[in-house]
């Protein structure tokens, strides 16, 4: 068309021959190019699929999980978060493990251990005021299974994992005492294992001289059996039954000194363990791949569970070897909405339920929504062993102290705080109002117990406030309204709403509550230095024993320790010391109840709630039963790969018609415009011709 409209008067000089030639070629070339582009588009679209995994992979027994971010470390002596533990506990096994199905009480069973440890009295000598005093402690004798091996790794001679001995477990204890290894739970061991404190101090002194930690120094509490390489002993300065729980934490896993020496800090990204899985790929910010470890020790799916487990299909794999999948792929997906959409497409095997997708997942009756039921999704309730609570600073001149008036002030505020309202508004009704520190499932938890100052009752709260000397929130001595300061780090909209609700509830008493917002690190500083009146805190169990919660009010654990309120009641402290070394007996239960009642009357904390969360799993996942404490579920969960591949294909058929429609619309829509331009060009050509004439 343009050829026709070109003015015949155009001279050869105006447009170079090559240019005019190229323009003649240009149109077929452009068409060819357009065709090539279209062909490329068709090829791309035909090869397109929204499956993020290699073709055929999802039909295999592989578990696909999501991570919000990279784990900070996979070093078993350092890692502490649940995200990290979900990976670390599959790579590094321990002497004990938690029974996968049994709860209430939690049951420990042997993993690396060959037999239950023997506990015997142990006499040791301590120097007190320059005099040697003999004291009575306890010694535990452990024996691990023979033939256990580390995974194959280049750190071992020939790349073959060597046999594990008792020395490898004690090596983990020694790493805790190394100043370059920031072990978060070293305090659980250092004040109980004989000689551990001195060993830590020795290594610290070496570190100050620029020397490496001493891994050879004899420590009285860490003993190897000279006659049996599989036996070791741990000597304690006091009876400490909770040691068995610590022997189920990854801090006490056998570690290969060869790996630590070869990889150093890189151990955080290059774990060398002996568990059911080993890490084979780690792409930061993208994915972590665990594959079944060929050197793993024999483990089997439990053959018995709780009532109802068999009916729920949780015993179908009873007695089968572990792990139930050959690989676990963790994809790093930062955004919750992306992870949720991947779950809906079937590309993630499980998902949590957030405030954003709650309406889509749960019906009004608290059941799965019809849409989720149609997809075959299953919902599991995950009851965590934790507690959220508000803390009074017991050294504050207004809310602290142990006089009857101060107690009544705290009791009044506690009675005015309605946990259920928080749970309903901010946790979609998930969670249990807390009456005391102990969550369900922990020995000492009493479902029938009602804390007298945690039953929401505004009239009673006002009465208590009046008895405290603040009728209707007015100080009877000065006539001023009582003002409390609530230090918080609520920077998100949801956080601010929670502060708003707390303010509303407390101000219903006539008290003025002023919120002081700080950045998290400043807030933590204020808590550590006692520069607060009233803050909110939370605690997750390290192990399922009452001691791990009751320590939150034990006087010697004062700030910056876990007792942030600085509560210090000699009677409570005495009972705690007595209780912590006892087995779970009726006598221990009686002590716990007395401690509970003392804490209720003193009211240093306002117990808010024990969290619950929902976990959704795809129809092809088997053996799912969330455990509140253990983090090794990855080895028990099974996958029906063919079913997954079939459903994924069914749910993810691409629809090309909208794309084709859009292209056609653009092409057809441009035709009139092309005509307009042609007409405009022709008009201008005509005008030129007429002008020349």
């Amino acid at each position, binding site marked *: 068309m343009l050829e026709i409209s070109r003015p015949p008067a155009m001279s050869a000089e105006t447009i170079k021959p090559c240019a005019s030639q190229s323009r003649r070629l240009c149109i077929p070339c452009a068409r060819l190019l357009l065709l090539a582009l279209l062909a490329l588009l068709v090829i791309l679209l035909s090869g397109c699929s929204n*499956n993020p995994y290699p073709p055929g992979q999802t039909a295999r027994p592989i578990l696909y999980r999501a991570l919000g971010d990279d784990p900070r470390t996979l070093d078993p002596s350092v890692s502490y978060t649940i995200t990290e533990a979900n990976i670390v506990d599959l790579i590094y096994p321990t002497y004990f493990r938690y029974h996968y199905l049994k709860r209430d009480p939690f049951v420990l069973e042997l993993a690396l251990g060959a037999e239950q440890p023997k506990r015997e009295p142990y006499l040791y000598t301590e120097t007190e005021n320059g005099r040697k005093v003999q004291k009575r402690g306890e010694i535990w004798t452990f024996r691990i299974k023979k033939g256990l091996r580390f995974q194959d790794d280049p750190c071992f001679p020939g790349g073959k994992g060597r046999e594990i001995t008792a020395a490898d477990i004690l090596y983990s204890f020694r790493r805790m005492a190394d100043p370059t290894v920031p072990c978060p739970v070293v305090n659980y061991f250092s004040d109980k294992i004989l000689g551990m404190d001195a060993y830590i101090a020795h290594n610290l002194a070496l570190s100050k001289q620029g020397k490496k930690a001493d891994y050879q120094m004899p420590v009285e509490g860490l003993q190897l059996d000279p006659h049996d390489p599989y036996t070791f002993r741990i000597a304690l300065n006091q009876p400490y039954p909770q040691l068995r729980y610590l022997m189920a934490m990854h801090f006490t896993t056998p570690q290969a000194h060869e790996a630590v020496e070869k990889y150093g800090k890189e151990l955080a*990204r290059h774990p060398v363990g002996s568990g059911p899985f080993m890490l084979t790929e780690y792409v930061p910010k993208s994915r972590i791949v665990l594959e079944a470890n060929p050197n793993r020790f024999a483990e089997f799916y439990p053959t018995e569970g709780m009532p109802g487990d068999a009916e729920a299909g949780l015993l179908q794999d009873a007695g089968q070897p572990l792990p139930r999948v050959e690989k676990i792929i963790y994809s790093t997906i930062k955004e919750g909405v992306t992870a949720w959409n991947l779950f809906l497409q079937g590309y993630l095997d499980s998902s949590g339920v957030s405030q954003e997708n709650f309406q889509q997942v749960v019906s009004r009756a608290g059941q799965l929504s019809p849409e989720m039921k149609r997809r075959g999704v299953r919902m599991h309730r995950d009851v965590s062993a934790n507690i959220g609570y508000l803390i009074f600073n017991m050294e504050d001149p207004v809310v602290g102290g142990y006089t009857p008036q101060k107690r009544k002030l705290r009791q009044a505020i506690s009675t005015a705080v309605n946990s259920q309202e928080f749970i309903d508004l901010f946790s979609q009704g998930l969670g249990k109002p807390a009456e005391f520190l102990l969550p369900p499932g922990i020995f000492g938890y009493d479902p029938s117990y009602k804390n007298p100052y945690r039953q929401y009752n505004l009239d009673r709260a006002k009465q208590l406030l009046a008895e405290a000397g603040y009728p209707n929130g007015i100080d009877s001595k000065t006539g001023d309204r009582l003002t409390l300061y609530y230090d918080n780090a609520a920077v998100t909209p949801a956080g601010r709403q929670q502060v708003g609700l707390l303010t509303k509830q407390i101000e219903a008493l006539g008290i003025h509550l002023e919120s002081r917002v700080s950045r998290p690190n*400043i807030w933590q500083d204020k808590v550590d230095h006692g520069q607060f009146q009233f803050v909110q805190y939370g605690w997750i169990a390290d192990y399922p024993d009452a001691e791990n919660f009751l320590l939150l009010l034990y006087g010697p654990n004062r700030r*910056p320790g876990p007792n942030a309120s600085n509560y210090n009641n000699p009677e409570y402290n005495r009972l705690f010391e007595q209780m912590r070394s006892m087995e779970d007996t009726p006598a221990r239960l009686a002590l716990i109840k007395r401690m509970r009642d003392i804490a209720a009357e003193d009211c240093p904390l306002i117990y808010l709630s024990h969290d619950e969360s929902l976990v959704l799993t795809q129809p092809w996942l088997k053996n799912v039963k969330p455990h509140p404490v253990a983090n090794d579920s990855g080895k028990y969960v099974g996958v029906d790969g063919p079913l997954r591949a079939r459903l994924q294909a069914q749910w993810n058929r691409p629809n090309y018609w909208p794309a084709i429609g859009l292209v056609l619309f653009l092409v057809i829509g441009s035709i009139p415009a092309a005509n307009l331009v042609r007409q405009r060009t022709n008009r201008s050509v005509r005008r030129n011709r007429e002008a020349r004439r």
Partner: protein
Amino acid sequence: MLRYIIRRVLYAVPILFGVTLLTFILFYMTATPDQVARRNLSAKNPTQQQLNEWKAEHGYDKPLWQQFTKHTRELFLLQFGRSDTNDEPIWNRIRAGAGPSFMLMSLVFVTALITSISFALFVAYFRGTYVDYWGTFLCVLLMSIVYMVYIMAGQFILGKLLKYFPLAGFRGGLTAWKFLLLPMIVGVISGLGGSVRLYRTFILDEINQDYVRTARAKGVSERAILFKHVLKNAAIPILTSTVAAIPGLILGSLLLESFFGIPGLGSLLVDAINSQDFAVIRAEVFLGTLLTIIGYILTDIGYAMVDPRVRLE
């Protein structure tokens, strides 16, 4: 030109020093070494001894001036050290992240440039017709939409509804294109409105020049005028507005990478700020400044190469 480049490189030294000093001061205004140590230790209640050990290991126990001189010397030697959070060598992280970031951002950059110029030429070609009016309207509409909406809509329509592309993820090698297409489309469309309007203005400015009228009077076709003459001259301002984007090719895009699971460098700085990882913050800020300076020097050089009227003295 060489003298000019040398002078610009020398100017860069005080700028880099100033940025390093400012980063150092700002960081210490927001956090004390104890707070940094506490943030990076995983214990629930770390003891003062643990805090001191951490500070000693990471060099935060030294006087501030010693810390500053050490950090500055290392930065200028491009020795970034290890992350405060996870002890990973920072260069490893940059090397691992720069590839995916560069793949994604260069794809977005090149495609956006070609698409924007093509659309701008298209709209200019059809100037005065309904294509021009609707095109301008569409551009304003595209400019008015928030970036996040593009991401959400792109994932929802192209990933979830039509199921053309994976919603998130990344694989290296030949399969990378599959994961890069969706973020690329989102990245291109989100910037299209502004670019097309800007480039259309550049092109229309040129179309009204005398040389275009002369070419038209000589009978050169509209298409040849547009592609052979106007585009070349319009390239000068286009170049200025695009070369400055070069640092972003390596430093990546925070939102695109976060939502599409691309393991690039886009979120490195934000993650480091959130976790108070000063080692990564100072390295990333230094690198960002360095690349920006290089980007602007390249802009000037490109300017001189494209426009013979410009001389770098």
